């Protein structure tokens, strides 16, 4: 069918900030969708408040709105640019929910906007559990048996209807709280009783347990002519009971016979048909009882998803792109498969490799109890690896996840505990047991873990090979090991050799990677734009791109502190290079990204980001030009090894990078240039750290060298605090890994500056001022562009320091500097001669694509030639072209019921949003709305501030009173307010009895909390207040500057003005 002519202008809804469960896969899919729609000649608008995304880069859509994903703002967009259709399926659950809300509120009808992608009706049918169960049973398929009970008597009856074990879920509790599993009759009733008590509506769902069953997922596409295909089947190695996002998965399914697979295929297509998904992709999840083959339909998502991004990268089938084409009327047989360039999309990819996905957890930041994995997703990212065998793909994927494991390897401790628990290292525990006990252990490990014997046999084969290598490495074993995806490092460990020795052996045997293409058709047809993975021992495909190409190292799996922002930098650099006529080779392991889209680069390698692999790819491609400064810490960590192997590092030299990374050398540099940094010393042992801290004077900030996102950083107020930290963090301190002890600038203002240098000139893209005071990691702090509260001389000082540093370090490309200002004095906190997290944000709000500018510098075009610096000048500064732009951090704390949502020097946010406005109040209001922080327009505010803040809080309190808020304050604060003529009700502190602040928050009697830290000793009660506020989603500010910002925003909100602003194109 031809494209729809009844629509002309389509609004694509993005997914907003990165949170756990909704990450950059939606930047990838949205980006593909926008491009696909533009290709068809539609006018395309995009709304997404996430400035880190590729999709919001000017030029990608016709109209870009970095506005909150709220009905009011969408309505404004409808008025302003008048789209006649809205694509709902590209922005995850957020976009679906928003579409439903627009539908229910009649906004779509009012503006005559059609929903394309998935209809409101289909969304309803898929999302409503009851409706969906009805559909499933009407198709002769099964859902998990379940009953809703309100009394113990009802619960007793269930025992006769559904066999044990039973899952007990109280309704309407936060984060699945109070859920349990009853294994026996004796446990059952007490557990139900407790659940009934916990549930605010005294309602409990009792469900058949599918834990331990095999789990599968089918990625389905269906069009308006009822053509349907399965893009990919995915099997979860972790059985039912662990969220798919947290499971190690493999594609295609490994243990299903054709009969079982076709049964699932038929069921999936029938479900899509019944739900009414008729122009796009969906996924359907199944559980299969390994004992009797019983198949249960778990759920379906009528939209593109994390797994569809994974399936796209695993197969080469661009699901989002194709979904967008179907949404505007095309059918599958009309959409060309761009990988082969000659076949159509109405086919099912045939794989001749396996694709393994391994999740990436942040166990250090969000410590998990042993049996932590369950029905809620906890991982923050994922890595994909392709290989010709399970072992190869699995070893590579485990390595790609950068979890400090070199593939399948033994655990040193807690093996039995982890084996019995849903734990991120469970597969390694299984490997450990099987290596010890051999094949005989397979049935037992299968019984305990639910891992299919098929996968356990893969572990057995690996362990047998490992044992052979332990006896002594031979040429044959080395070949086998490389074919199994083992790293030189892992082989060296097993063979008790050095990595260099293994590498040398490999060179002697001429054992190098061979490249295979992902061509969607298992070699049946020649591919036009394939991408690559590497293997050993097979014929190589593809001619080298040669020495004129450039290798861009991306950032690997998302993690806190290294995520979407860096992927955007890598993607934009590839586009900029290609514009300059240079061919690009992208290396990445993160399947969620735009950088791993098949047409972002000239050649894409889905590969672990390790020096071994990168050196091999350099060798194969005859290319040694490598960009390491755009992908965060991952590329930088291997830069030295790459250089030693002959890589020519693009831009700033490694030596300069090292000088800024090594805190000792950096201090010397600062001294040499006559700049200032917080007083600091180096500690080489625990005792030494304590000694140095006492010399500097508390509070002090501890930070180890070479970490990103502030891992293991800590503020200590006294010696006891230091000792407690040593114990809790388990940090190893030695001559080799020293710790820097910094003077901590309490209550200082922090700044982030991003600049480009060509060695002679610098262009400062922008300076951000943080709203939170120093001590909160820059990634977790709200930041304002331009600085909102600073003296011109401080800004000038920052610029001149930047020029000095850039010149001295001979920076070529991007650099980021963090400054702090206390009592009118400027300090340098750190310098990073590489792309920072704020580069995409500043690029968009200053209308200068900083990454492109850096690429042009690398290509020999200096900043004057680019027009960024005036001839004769050596410095220029960008300005905020959108008025005010405020970046707010977004957290995923609601995923971790037991984690204290405390902010500190260690970064914990998962994503960010921007608020743009002509006034500070507007911008801040929008940043809060976009981050899900619901600032109240009226109600009660509780104020509790420390002595230092008593003066600054007064005008704020006065303003809030004027705005009609009812004031509450803790005793001391209330007294100070009273002295200034402001009346506030007294609220009790946590330790002063009940009802105290926490009780009031819990009872929803408070709408805004202003609580500045009272110092180390009241930390516990501050923590309680913050935790409770976060849990109840009540806005909470920890600084008077944030409180002031909130007040301005509230003042703006009271006007009930919703203004949307289109992002301007780049210069």
């Amino acid at each position, binding site marked *: 069918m031809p494209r729809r002519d009844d629509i002309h202008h389509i609004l694509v809804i993005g997914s907003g900030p990165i949170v756990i469960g909704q990450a950059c896969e939606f930047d990838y899919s949205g980006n593909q969708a926008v491009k696909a729609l533009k290709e068809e000649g539609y006018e395309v608008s995009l709304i997404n408040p996430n400035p880190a995304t590729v999709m919001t880069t000017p030029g990608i859509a016709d109209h870009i709105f970095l506005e909150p994903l709220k009905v009011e703002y969408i309505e404004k967009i409808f008025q302003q640019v008048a789209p006649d259709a809205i694509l709902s399926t590209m922005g995850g659950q957020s976009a679906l929910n928003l579409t439903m809300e627009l539908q229910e509120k009649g906004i779509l009808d009012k503006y005559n906007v059609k929903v394309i992608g998935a209809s409101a009706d289909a969304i309803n049918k898929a999302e409503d559990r009851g409706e969906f169960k009805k559909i499933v049973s009407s198709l002769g398929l099964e859902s998990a048996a379940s009953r809703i009970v309100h009394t113990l008597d009802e619960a007793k009856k269930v025992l006769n209807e559904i066999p044990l074990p039973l899952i007990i879920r109280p309704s309407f509790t936060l984060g699945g709280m109070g859920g349990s599993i009853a294994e026996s009759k004796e446990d059952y009733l007490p557990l139900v009783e407790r659940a009934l008590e916990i549930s605010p509506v005294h309602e409990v769902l009792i469900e058949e347990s599918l834990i331990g069953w095999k789990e599968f997922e089918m990625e389905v596409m269906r069009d308006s002519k009822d053509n349907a295909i399965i893009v990919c089947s995915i099997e979860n190695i972790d059985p039912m009971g662990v969220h798919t996002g947290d499971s190690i998965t493999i594609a295609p399914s490994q243990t299903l016979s054709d*009969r079982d697979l076709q049964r699932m295929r038929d069921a999936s297509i029938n479900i899509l048909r019944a739900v009414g998904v008729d122009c796009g992709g969906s996924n359907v999840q199944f559980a299969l009882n390994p004992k009797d083959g019983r198949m249960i339909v778990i759920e379906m998502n009528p939209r593109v998803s994390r797994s569809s991004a994974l399936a796209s990268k695993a197969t080469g089938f661009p699901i989002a792109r194709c979904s967008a084409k179907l949404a505007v009327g095309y059918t599958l047989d009309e959409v060309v498969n761009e990988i082969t360039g000659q076949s159509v999309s109405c086919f099912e990819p045939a794989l001749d490799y396996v694709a393994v996905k391994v999740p990436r957890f942040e166990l250090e930041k969000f410590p998990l109890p042993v049996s932590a994995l369950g029905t809620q997703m906890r991982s923050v990212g994922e890595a994909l690896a392709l290989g010709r065998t399970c072992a190869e793909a699995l070893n590579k994927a485990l390595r790609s996840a950068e979890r400090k494991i070199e593939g399948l390897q033994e655990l040193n401790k807690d093996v039995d505990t982890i084996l019995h628990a849903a734990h991120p290292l469970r597969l390694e525990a299984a490997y450990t047991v099987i290596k010890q006990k051999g094949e005989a252990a397979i049935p037992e490990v299968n019984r305990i873990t639910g891992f299919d014997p098929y996968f356990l046999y893969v572990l057995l084969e690996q362990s047998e090979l490992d044992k052979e290598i332990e006896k002594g490495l031979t040429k044959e074993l080395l070949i086998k090991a490389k074919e199994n995806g083992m790293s030189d490092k892992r082989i060296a460990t097993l063979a008790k050799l050095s990595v260099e020795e293994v590498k040398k052996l490999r060179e002697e045997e001429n054992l190098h990677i061979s490249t295979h293409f992902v061509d969607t058709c298992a070699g049946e047809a020649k591919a036009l734009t394939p991408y690559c993975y590497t293997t050993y021992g097979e014929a190589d495909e593809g001619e080298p791109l040669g020495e004129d190409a450039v290798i861009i190292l991306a950032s690997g799996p998302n993690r806190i502190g290294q995520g979407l922002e860096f992927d955007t930098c890598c993607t934009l650099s590839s586009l900029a290079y290609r514009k300059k006529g240079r061919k690009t080779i992208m290396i990445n392991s993160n399947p969620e990204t735009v950088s791993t889209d098949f047409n972002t680069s000239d050649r894409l390698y889905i590969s672990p980001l390790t020096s071994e692999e990168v050196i091999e790819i350099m060798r194969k491609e005859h290319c040694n030009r490598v960009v390491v400064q755009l992908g965060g810490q991952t590329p930088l960590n291997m830069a030295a090894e790459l250089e030693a192997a002959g890589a020519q590092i693009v831009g700033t030299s490694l030596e300069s990078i090292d000088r800024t990374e090594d805190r000792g050398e950096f201090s010397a540099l600062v001294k040499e240039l006559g700049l200032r940094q917080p007083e600091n010393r180096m500690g080489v042992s625990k005792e030494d750290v304590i000694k140095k801290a006492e010399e500097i004077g508390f509070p002090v900030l501890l930070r180890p060298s070479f970490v990103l996102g502030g891992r293991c950083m800590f503020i200590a107020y006294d010696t006891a605090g230091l000792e407690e930290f040593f114990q809790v963090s388990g940090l190893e301190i030695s001559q080799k890994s020293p710790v820097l002890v910094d003077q901590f600038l309490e209550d200082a203002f922090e700044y982030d500056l991003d600049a480009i240098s060509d060695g002679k000139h610098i262009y400062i893209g922008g300076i951000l001022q943080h709203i939170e005071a120093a001590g909160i990691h820059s990634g977790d702090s709200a930041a304002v562009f331009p600085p909102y509260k600073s003296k011109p001389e401080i800004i000038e000082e920052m610029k001149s320091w930047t020029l000095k540093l850039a010149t001295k370090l001979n920076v070529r490309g991007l650099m980021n500097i963090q400054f702090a200002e206390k009592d009118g004095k400027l300090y340098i906190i750190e310098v990073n001669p590489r792309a920072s997290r704020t580069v995409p944000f500043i690029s968009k709000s200053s209308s200068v694509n900083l990454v492109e500018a850096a690429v042009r510098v690398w290509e020999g075009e200096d900043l004057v030639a680019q027009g960024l610096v005036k001839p004769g000048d050596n410095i220029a500064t960008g300005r905020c072209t959108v008025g005010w732009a405020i970046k707010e951090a977004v957290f995923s704390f609601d995923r971790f019921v037991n984690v204290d949502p405390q902010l500190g020097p260690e970064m914990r946010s998962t994503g960010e949003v921007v608020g743009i406005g002509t006034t500070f109040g507007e911008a801040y209001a929008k940043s809060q709305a976009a981050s899900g922080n619901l600032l109240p327009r009226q109600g009660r505010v509780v104020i509790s501030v420390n002595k230092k803040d008593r003066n600054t809080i007064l005008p704020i309190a006065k303003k809030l009173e004027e705005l009609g808020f009812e004031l509450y304050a803790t005793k001391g604060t209330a007294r100070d307010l009273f002295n200034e003529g402001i009346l506030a009700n007294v609220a009790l502190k946590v330790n002063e009895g009940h009802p105290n602040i926490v009780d009031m928050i819990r009872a929803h009697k408070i709408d805004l909390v202003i609580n500045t830290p009272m110092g180390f000793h009241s930390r516990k009660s501050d923590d309680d207040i913050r935790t409770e506020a976060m849990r109840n989603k009540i806005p909470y500010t920890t600084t008077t500057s944030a409180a002031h910002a909130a007040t301005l925003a509230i003042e703006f909100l009271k006007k009930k003005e919703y203004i949307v602003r289109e992002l301007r194109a780049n210069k």
Partner: protein
Amino acid sequence: MQKAYLKLKDGTIFSGILHGKANVCGEVVFNTSMTGYPEILTDPSYNGQIVVMTYPLIGNYGVDIYEKESSSIKATALIVKKLYRGPLPEGKTSLEEYMSKGDKPILEGIDTRALTLHLRDNGSQNGVIYLEGMEAEADKILSTFPKITERDLISEVAVDKVTQSPELSEGFVAPPTNPTLKAAVVDYGIKYSIIDDLYQRNCAVTLFPPTFKAEDVLDKGYDLLFLSNGPGDPALLTQSVEEIKKCLKKIPIRGICLGHQLLTLALGGKTVKMDFGHHGGNQPVKDMITGKTFVTSQNHGFMSDEKTLPSEVLVWMRNANDNSVEGIISKENNVKSVQFHPEASPGPHDKNDIFDEFLKEL
């Protein structure tokens, strides 16, 4: 397990490990299905062929007694990247044991991707599997081994006498006791699943050998003549084609795969050998009448040559990738046939309703 090689007619050699007998020869073809190796191995259309699975991991779920398309393994040999040897669910046989019982070899450890690309670029051709050090003998075998277009592969897999209501193996339906339709089926190497699909529609089946005569099936109370799938070159079956011609206009005729090619010939068209054919479970086919596209299972190295088809013959189905003819209708002759396998097994069930279509307008 011994070191062994596959040598192709054009001299290209691939090395691997052999399980089972050596010195076997056959046309080397690849199949891109990721599941369904038991069905493929027992499919009579693979008689005389060495099957290369492009999916590298084979044997993962063993073999079930239900998973067969004929009474025995028909492929000459199986070539895989990696064979699974681990534990299996109760009741399943390992692929290695299954092949060994059928006296058919597995050549493992082959770079199947390189082999597939070679066959893609150079066409399917004969190959020989031999043990290390036995190349000279193997060369002799290979040089004298007939081309696929010269081999009678059908008589080995077809019935040699008329067979009423053949019983299929466990897992398939029994012959209908009270059939509403009766089909005369010419067996060129029919798959169990095709018979099963007819049985399921309450259609009785009488199998005839490929040497059937028109008079055996005309005016004997049959509602239709059905021409089955089977191995090899349709152009060799000149006698069969003559008999089919005699049946035109006298009885509705239906055909699948080889049967479709024979109908092409009987209607006056020609068939041609394809470079490497369609072998897999992911081929898109478009119904030119309804405009719908669906995913099919296919296994053929010959096809109808569209330009030789008489004008009266309608191209019913086309391959959505290469536009080749996938189905024809001749209204004049009440003929309908498809090139792909609506019975799937292995592969998607999307077009199982072709059997309903076949049993219409009789």
